[in-house]
């Protein structure tokens, strides 16, 4: 932590990359300012409670990391700081309740479904609820899709090129089971045998993002041993899971099973990265030209440095035209549980993102992360725009299979 | 009163200290500036001349302010260098006068004007204090930049005795072209086209012609590439700006002297933006004119300076009268001089310098 703080030379190069800074224009809501605040808290010249609102407003989008010439590992700093603070933190009752809800429901598809049902009842009462709850309700679709379990093993089609397992994801399983389903199909179509271990669950990342360290560790642990040993990779279709798992090293620091966590983390690969390094075999493409905007998920672009993988895949598809947009690297405001914690900022970022997407006049938006997809759909809906937003796995499946 | 020609800074200081009003003349080439100076001690700076420091490899030169521009240019030319702000009237004007009046010529188009090439100065102010402003190196960010302030200051704030400029290597070869347009708007569109293109012109002037408007353009560069560049530029202009006629012109001294063909009792320089030209031009019927530097400077000659002043005022513009008997050399819209007044208060509180 201290290394990260001391490495910061206060040059400000990270400021333009930071969504909250560009929105609020104030130093406390910039990476440089947050580092400074954390430093003051650690040095005990500032109380943690005073600094908290500004740290809470950080999206954790990591756009500041590649922007920093001095190599400040902001991500490590933030995660460690949040873990440290969470242990001591007192939240106001309502906040604490909302957070409890996040911690207790989001990681568990069944509970989440349940909450969602009640949520729908809650929609009628939205006006009476505090903003934090209202925004959570906004995320819920009118009707939850029915579960769409993938078979435990989906055989490769044609020549076998690799064996992988799918990480089920949590919120995503409830909100959009079709994503993993499509991912499995797209992989199989490209010669990959796909396992979906029935007992695997949430990786804990979403809790790590809100600093609920203990719960995160427990969830993560449950997954070790659920996956076959002879697979080439564990595939995630949610960017947040991917980058969260790469933070296991920090999470499991000084834990007895740190080695196991590291081994697990090494196997985890994002869907697009995996397929792009394997190389697409099938690409029938679309009958008519599709104008596509690819929305980078922060946790792929900034946290995992994946700028070109998904784009490379999309560009290989016949009749798919990839359109550039302004401020492509700017967060859409989704950021894990952020649109639940900081609804106003999330909404404004979403509004800006949608505006720059629409300026490119696409007929399809593609992303690699459920959070971004939900956020964009929500924002588009509020502007009354019917533009579809889909996961890259779905688009590739359609393109590979020529929509069987 | 006869002019005195001090030969040293100390002499100038004592002259200022012992006079109520002081008026500086360089070479006296801008006669309009010397009209309202009755009773003032006239300081002739021609004694303060000569190249004081010149290291071609530094791109800098320091000269006495009273010297002729022509002599400076000749010294630079020996080393293949030039003053890119292209002072006007090199044969008649002093270097100090060029700075005081901010008189740059057509080649200012390429790299910038007097303000862009002045680096520092030695001054005697209205209190008789002698001091330096700016620096002698091409880059310097220490202290307030009073050297730039001198540009256009008309000798009213301090007397310049020494000036340091940035200089550049000059091009070995030049080619000039003329494009004719029937309407002013078309000629202006051609300027806008050039402004957004990658053609690098050495100079670009807009001149009324018998049957419309002419754009006079010049390119400068190496022998090897110049003919091809000229060809490409002419072709581009022909394709995109549809001139009614294109001609290659022989280089001659008068071709690029904006004042050569401007006859009239009064000669005025005004700064304006190209888009102000149409409205302004409609108002100055009768004035001879040339819009130099891509339409950013108007050179105007007229016998009716009142009408010209009114037209300038109407367009929110200001002009500097260089020739002719005027009450005040600056005509047209009044300047917002809140900041200039503060400087005056410090450098010449008794208003000695006129």
């Amino acid at each position, binding site marked *: 932590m201290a290394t990260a703080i001391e490495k910061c030379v206060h040059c400000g190069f990270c400021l333009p990359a930071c969504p909250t800074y560009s929105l609020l224009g104030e130093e406390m809501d910039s990476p440089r300012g947050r580092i400074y*605040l954390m430093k003051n808290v650690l040095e005990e010249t500032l109380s943690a409670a005073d600094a908290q609102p500004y740290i809470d407003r950080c999206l954790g989008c990591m756009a500041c990391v590649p922007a920093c010439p001095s190599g400040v590992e902001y991500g490590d700093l933030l995660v460690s700081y949040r873990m440290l603070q969470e242990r001591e933190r007192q939240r106001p009752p309502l906040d604490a309740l909302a957070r409890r809800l996040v911690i207790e429901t989001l990681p568990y598809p069944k509970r989440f479904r349940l909450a969602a049902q009640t949520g729908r009842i809650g929609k009628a009462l939205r006006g009476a609820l505090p903003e934090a709850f209202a925004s959570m309700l906004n995320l819920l679709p009118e009707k939850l899709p029915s579960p769409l379990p993938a078979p435990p093993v989906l055989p490769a089609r044609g020549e076998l090129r690799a064996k992988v397992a799918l990480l089920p994801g949590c919120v995503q399983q409830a909100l959009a089971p079709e994503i993993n389903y499509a991912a499995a199909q797209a992989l199989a179509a490209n010669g990959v045998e796909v396992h979906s271990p029935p007992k695997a669950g949430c990786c804990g990342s979403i809790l790590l993002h809100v600093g609920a360290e203990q719960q995160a560790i427990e969830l993560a642990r449950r997954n070790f041993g659920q996956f076959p040993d002879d697979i080439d990779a564990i595939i995630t279709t949610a960017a947040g899971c991917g980058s969260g798992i790469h933070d296991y090293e920090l999470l499991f620091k000084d834990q007895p099973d740190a080695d196991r966590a590291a081994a697990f983390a090494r196997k985890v690969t994002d869907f697009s990265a995996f397929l792009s390094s394997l190389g697409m075999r099938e690409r029938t493409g679309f009958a008519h030209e599709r104008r596509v905007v690819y929305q980078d998920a922060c946790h792929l672009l900034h946290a995992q440095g994946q700028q070109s993988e998904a784009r490379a895949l999309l560009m290989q598809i016949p009749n798919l035209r990839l359109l550039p947009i302004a401020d492509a690297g700017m967060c859409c405001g989704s950021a894990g549980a952020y649109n639940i914690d900081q609804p106003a900022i999330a909404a404004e970022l979403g509004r800006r993102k949608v505006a720059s997407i629409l300026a490119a006049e696409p007929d399809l938006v593609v992303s690699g992360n459920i959070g971004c997809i939900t956020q964009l759909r929500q924002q588009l809906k509020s502007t009354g725009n019917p533009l579809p937003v889909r996961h890259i796995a779905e688009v590739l499946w359609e393109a590979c299979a020529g929509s069987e | 009163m006869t002019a005195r020609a001090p030969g040293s800074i100390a002499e100038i200081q004592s002259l200022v200290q012992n006079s109520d009003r002081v008026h500086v003349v360089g070479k006296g080439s801008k006669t309009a500036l010397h009209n309202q100076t009755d009773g003032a001690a006239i300081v002739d700076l021609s004694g303060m001349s000569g190249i004081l420091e010149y290291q071609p490899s530094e791109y800098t030169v320091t000269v006495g302010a009273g010297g002729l521009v022509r002599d400076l240019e000749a010294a630079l030319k020996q080393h293949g260098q030039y003053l890119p702000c292209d002072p006007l009237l090199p044969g008649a004007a002093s270097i100090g006068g060029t700075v005081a009046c901010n008189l740059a010529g057509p080649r200012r188009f390429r790299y910038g004007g007097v303000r862009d090439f002045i680096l520092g100065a030695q001054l005697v102010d209205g209190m008789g204090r002698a001091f330096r402003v700016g620096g002698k*190196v091409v880059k310097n960010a220490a202290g307030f930049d009073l050297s730039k302030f001198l540009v256009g200051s008309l000798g009213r704030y301090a007397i310049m005795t020494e000036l340091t400029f940035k200089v550049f290597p000059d091009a070995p070869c030049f080619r000039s072209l003329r494009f004719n347009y029937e309407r002013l708007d078309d000629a202006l569109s051609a300027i806008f086209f050039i402004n957004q293109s990658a053609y690098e012109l050495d100079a670009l002037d807009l001149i009324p012609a018998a049957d419309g408007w002419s754009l006079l353009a010049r390119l400068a560069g190496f022998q090897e590439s110049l003919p091809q560049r000229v060809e490409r530029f002419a072709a581009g202009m022909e394709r995109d700006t549809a001139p009614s006629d294109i001609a290659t012109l022989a280089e001659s001294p008068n071709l690029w002297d904006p004042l050569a063909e401007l006859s009239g009792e009064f000669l005025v320089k005004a700064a304006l933006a190209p888009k102000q030209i149409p409205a302004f031009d409609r108002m100055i019927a009768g004035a001879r004119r040339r819009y130099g530097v891509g339409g950013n400077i108007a050179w105007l000659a007229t016998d009716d300076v009142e009408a010209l002043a009114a037209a300038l005022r109407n367009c929110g513009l200001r002009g500097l009268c260089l020739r002719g008997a005027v009450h005040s050399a600056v005509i047209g819209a009044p300047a917002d001089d809140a900041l200039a007044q503060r400087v005056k208060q410090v450098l010449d509180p008794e208003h000695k310098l006129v």
Partner: protein
Amino acid sequence: MNRAFIAALESIYPPQRLLTRDVELLPYESDALTAFQTKPAAAVLPDSDDEIIATVRLCHEHAVPFVARGSGTSLSGGSLPIADGLIIGLNRLNRIKKLDPQQRIAVVEPGVINLSITEAAQPYGLYYAPDPSSQSICTIGGNIAFNSGGAHCLKYGMTSNHVLGMKVVLADGTVTQFGSESIEGVGIGPDLVGLFVGSEGLFGIALEITVRLMPQPELYRTVLAAYDDLGRAGDAVSMVVASGLLPGAMEIMDRLAIKAAEASVKAGYPDAEALLIVELEGETLQVNAEFEQLRGIIEASGAFEIRVANSEEERARIWKGRKGAFSAVGRLSPDYIVQDGVVPRSRLGEALVEIGALKEKYGLDVANVFHAGDGNLHPLILYDGRAAGALEKAEALAGEILALCVNLGGSITGEHGIGMEKRDYMPAMFSEEELDIMQALRRAIDPLEIANRGKMFPGGEAPALKQHGMHPLEKAGVISRE
């Protein structure tokens, strides 16, 4: 800061834009020169120039000192707050009000980021020329205060040469406007734009700025040459200048700076004592002709490796290392001081030898990055704040470098300004009378000396230099730094 003043601010600003709590003010404590830290009494974040004007007038009325702040990237403590003073943060004023590609001008608010002007002008084939290394974040207001420049200022000049007009509020609340949309700028009358630019925020606040745009060069040809001797790279620069070429940029980095840049952006620089970057820019045909000449010169200059950028990507890579070199040094050393001095180009070699000797004398590492074309040196002095007395030693070394610059006929700053850091070196460059005149000018504009009080002029209280030392948690054994 009295209650009435705060109350008056409250009538201008909603609570979110009037910062008074510690947690809100701490992040404004320093600019990019972190050796100085001062917490302001309050900060405001105006949304309009009317708010700025009202604020400045209030400050004048209540004799409260203020500091305008752009992005706080000043390297000389220029935007360091004043204790008991007000910070006026201009980042929210970031609109480009007008872009007229035909006349090649833009009218912008002071908080507009330098690079965003170029981004806005790019579709029209234009760009904003001054390119400080910090261009992705520094604001036009800050650029104006320091007359900032960058690697590409040899040909077309610094900020001052690209500002045509301004609306400003002087420190006493007077609002005034000068200059125009003509490339002549002020044109008739003293060049007030030239005077205001470089005044380091001591005259007042720039509210609206008209800048000129330049056509994007059709072609860049960029050469990277590696030398096993720093002096030889310097000689190569003299050879280029003597040949009559006018490159857009000429930059030198020494071994340590190369190492930092490599660690940061992995530009793939050759392993060398010195790297020279020369870039030609302009019309394709002309640049290609010039390039042949340049190649001949560089080949004859004793470089052991020459690389020519063959694509925009390769060019960007060459520059990325150079542009990020300052902050990249943060990877090599826990602490460092960025210096900025100018020497006549012909004495560059001498200066480098002297700096080498000083390095030995102080036992500190110095990385050199410089705009070789205009003799602007940026020595980066590395030290470890944890060692007792290290900061003082580094400061002393920095001071000697500045003295060296003045002795060689140069300047104590080329682009970072005097700010808080170099106040005490002003007498080395200016006589007492010259300083008096500047002071008098300042007081004629700002009788109460409220605008950026304590900067530029020697004397007055300076905040204590901050000794980094051991981190409190480190002392307590909780954390460690490798």
